[in-house]
């Protein structure tokens, strides 16, 4: 009961309702995000339909190991995030599990960005930036890398926001400013985190797997 009154916000009088509204609100926002990234995927798809061979050639130039490892890293971060969110709902005794889960999640998120940084470095060395001096001859390959830089950048920004949100949660929970049990911010942050993961799940075959079989 005290937990709930500490978490209750204007204009709500019923905590259960507030919880539901927060969850519903973030899902509506995720629907919006679906179209945000969906529009980028549409751009990719149209360009790939127009230049299938160039996209295969360009896809071969990406480093599939960085991509695969990073996918595994993000999938694992979703695991720890899910455990943290479920533990927060389960019982107040699991506060340490929540904190541990959030910390590993944030660290995995950081690991993803560090690995991505190494990959960017390699891409720069291989002259895979569209413009003069681009490594591949086909014009469509520049489209692929235009998409690559843009979408991985936008994804990295989303992930950084996610890491910031999780870090803030850790801080607030660690200092016991807010209880972990049923804290709506944990669930909302978790849902956002999973969406960023799903975006990457789709980017993985589109960026790293074209042209591997030929």
């Amino acid at each position, binding site marked *: 009961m005290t937990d709930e009154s500490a978490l209750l916000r204007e204009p709500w009088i019923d905590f259960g309702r507030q919880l539901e*509204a927060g969850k519903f609100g973030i899902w*509506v*926002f995720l629907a919006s995000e679906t179209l*945000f990234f969906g*529009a980028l995927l549409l751009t990719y798809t149209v*360009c790939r339909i127009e230049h299938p061979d160039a996209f295969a050639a360009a896809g071969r130039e990406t480093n599939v190991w960085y991509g695969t490892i990073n996918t595994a890293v993000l999938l694992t971060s979703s695991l720890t995030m899910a455990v943290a969110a479920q533990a927060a709902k389960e019982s107040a005794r699991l506060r340490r599990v929540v904190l541990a889960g959030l910390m590993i999640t944030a660290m995995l998120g950081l690991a993803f960005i560090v690995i991505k940084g190494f990959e960017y470095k390699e891409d720069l060395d291989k002259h895979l930036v569209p413009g003069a001096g681009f490594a591949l001859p086909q014009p469509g390959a520049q*489209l692929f890398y235009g998409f690559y830089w843009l979408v991985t950048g936008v994804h990295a920004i989303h992930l950084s926001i996610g890491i910031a949100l999780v870090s803030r949660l850790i801080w607030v929970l660690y200092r016991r400013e807010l209880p972990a049990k049923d804290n709506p911010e944990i669930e909302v942050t978790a849902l956002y985190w999973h969406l960023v993961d799903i975006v990457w799940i789709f980017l993985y075959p589109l960026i790293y797997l074209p042209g591997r079989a030929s």
Partner: protein
Amino acid sequence: MTDALLAGELPLPPRPDYLRHGSTIRSWLATTDHKRIAILYAVTITVFFFMGGAAITAVRLELFQPNGWLLTSDTYNKLFSFHGIIMVWFFLVPSIPNTFGNFLLPLMIGAPDVAFPRLNLFSWYLTIAAGAFTVYALVAGGVDTGWTFYTPYSSMFSNTHVFAAAAGVFVVGFASISTGVNFIATTHMLRAPGMTWFRLPLFVWAIYATSLIMVLATPVLAISLLLVIAERVLGLPIFDPARGGDPILFQHLFWFYSHPAVYIMVLPAMGVVSEIIPCFARRRIFGYDFMVYAMLAIAGIGFFVWGHHMFVSGQSALASLVFSFLSFIIAVPSAIKVFNWTASLYRGQISFESPMLYALGFVGLFTTGGLSGLFLASIPIDIHVTDTYFVVAHFHYIMVGGSVSAFFAGLHFWWPKVTGRLYPERWAKFAAILMYAGFNMTFLPQFFAGYLGMPRRYHTYPAEFQIYNVMSSAGAAVLALAYLLPLGYLTWSLFYGGKAARNPWSATGLEWTTSSPPPPKNFDRQPRVDRAPYDYHAEGVSAGTAPPEMQNARETR
């Protein structure tokens, strides 16, 4: 209060209304009260409205003569671009949703505030930041792409401040999305006891349907502008045909947002009119259920018609065919609404106060605009009039004749509730009639000029079109006066207007059951709803002039 006393309720202690609840600047700029945020938005969009209006005044002056006597072509391009960008994203899109929607949505559903009050304030700050970008784009030298930012011109050729303008629109999009999320959650989660979905006022339905579009369409606008920015700044080739890119793809992305955006602009206007017409006809709205379904249908089908902006873009014939067909379909729910407004007048006790004048003006102008839209949905006619003043006239009939008229209708209708003051009705009626006349003087000639082949976006034109342009520019002067009048007398009323009662129009709806202006938390007691909206007369009877049964008998009287 005597009835409340008889019912066994104690009178409440006096409390300040939301306007007098705090008077520091901080109490405004850090407020989370949806009513104060609505006022912040109202001030903001008023400033933007007159900025956009000033730009087009120069354009209309220029077009007074065919030879380009006033402006260079560069300046002309920048002025109409600025006009379009400001009017679409900084006036029309936020106009009714963010002012009246913010103010009325919680009041109409009997809630103390929106679901996420801090997000609501954040959205206003985003709007301000976005406005700063856009105004910077003008001050720094302007942008000349038109409001549509078409590629490859915007991405490769324009030497103007496309980046700042696109960034402004990009940011204001996120303000739009956060407001949409907020309103959707509010409508679902905060309705008062007894306020079932089919007891919601149509204005709430309109705001709800609008919010759906804001949330689902705006992200695609963000991407289209992000791609333009990326191409300009980073040199990505996405829209560059020379490097294999696809400039038409930009139009798909842009219009996937910008056609539904037309309904972001006009659905709230329909909501406003649906509140006003029953009140001044003393009639229930005709076909409430169908009005709801029609609005949801417009919001949904609105997503599937964007390609009718692209009939001459070089898209495939199949796509043109599909989009043309779907564009005809969307006329059906729009027509249902027009017929239902008209039918609501039948056997009514109609009185012509200023809000009603504006609302009736809306119905007429929206119908004209909508019917001319059918011309444009038909491919052969569209190819003939593409990029002519026919198109300009068409969408101004919808957006200015429709949405702006409805904005003024709502402004007058809810002014007593928002400010607690009465405005001079004679002046208001005069302004309403002047606006209608001025509007038609301005835009009716453009249908003719366009049909005869006068292209849009040129600062010179053949002398044979001068007669239409002189009429249009003269009308614009009348229209400008009609827009300035309310600024004068409404401001006057803030200081000298009579005090408004709770319910000056004897309207139904929860917002009229609380005091004018409302208290900070909207209602002194939790309202309960026990009847459908627009209960102006008993079922199966003609309209009377007696005050209606109110939503919540306990609150009124």
